[in-house]
């Protein structure tokens, strides 16, 4: 059980970092939409629309690390199964 919790904590941290890197390594806040700028050729104006897209930020990493920390912390309170005496 102890080992399982620690493995889960490690998996959460590694998966969160991997996801953060793959989705753009955004060093700002997490976004659920991104601006798409289009040029109106007649007026020369730049229009802004938003496209739904998940871009994890540093707050996402912080939550993942905190979650992993809780699991790792819990693992300290779990006793190992008693080894059979030889």
């Amino acid at each position, binding site marked *: 059980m102890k080992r399982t919790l620690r493995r889960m904590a490690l998996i959460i941290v590694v998966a969160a970092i991997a996801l953060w890197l793959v989705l753009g390594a955004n*060093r*700002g*806040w*997490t*976004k*659920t*939409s*991104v*601006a798409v700028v*289009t040029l*109106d050729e*007649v*007026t*020369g*104006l*730049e*229009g*802004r*629309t*938003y496209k739904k897209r998940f*871009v994890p*930020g*540093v707050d996402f990493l912080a939550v993942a690390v905190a979650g992993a920390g809780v699991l790792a912390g819990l693992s300290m309170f779990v006793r190992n199964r008693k080894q059979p005496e030889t």
Partner: protein
Amino acid sequence: MKTTIYTLIAMLAVSAGAQAASQNFDFKDPKGVNNAVFKLDAPLEAINGSANGISGTVEFDPQNPASTKGRIVVAASSLHVPNPTMKQHLQSDQWMDVSKFPEITFDAKELKNVKTSGDITTAEATGTLTIRGVAKEVTVPVKLTYLKDKLGLRVPNQKGDLLVVRASFPISRKEFGINPKAPEDKVSDTIELTLSIAGASRRS
């Protein structure tokens, strides 16, 4: 007496001519390009968003741009930032309170320091900016571009002219009562506003 009557008739004719030359431009954009961008500095990342719910009318005379006046309205509910929690805060009663103050308006009363070169006019527009129910007299630099007969290129089967308005200016968050208690080391007092809009004057 006769001279006075003729003078009056002449003045009326000139005045009517001037009124006929001015056009009304409707800023409800069918293409959805019109937008107002806002930016506030913050420690981790600048808060950058926009609004596209723009409407209003501007009276513009290509022969006399100095007489331009009008009203631009931004629907507060169209304010958007890419972070959902931030958007919730932005529209809440602490910040923009969009349910109580659904409109941000600018009533342009007069243009000063007007300089026209070809179809482009630069000036300082004086008017009343109302945000969150707080009205303040402001003077902002504007650039007007008059595009004669260009409406058909944007909206097929329609004839008319376009007026492009660009303005960029700072305002104070605290002066307009936008979460005045928020500390400046967390979010700046200055909000940079950029307006990029086009209006259409249709002809049948």
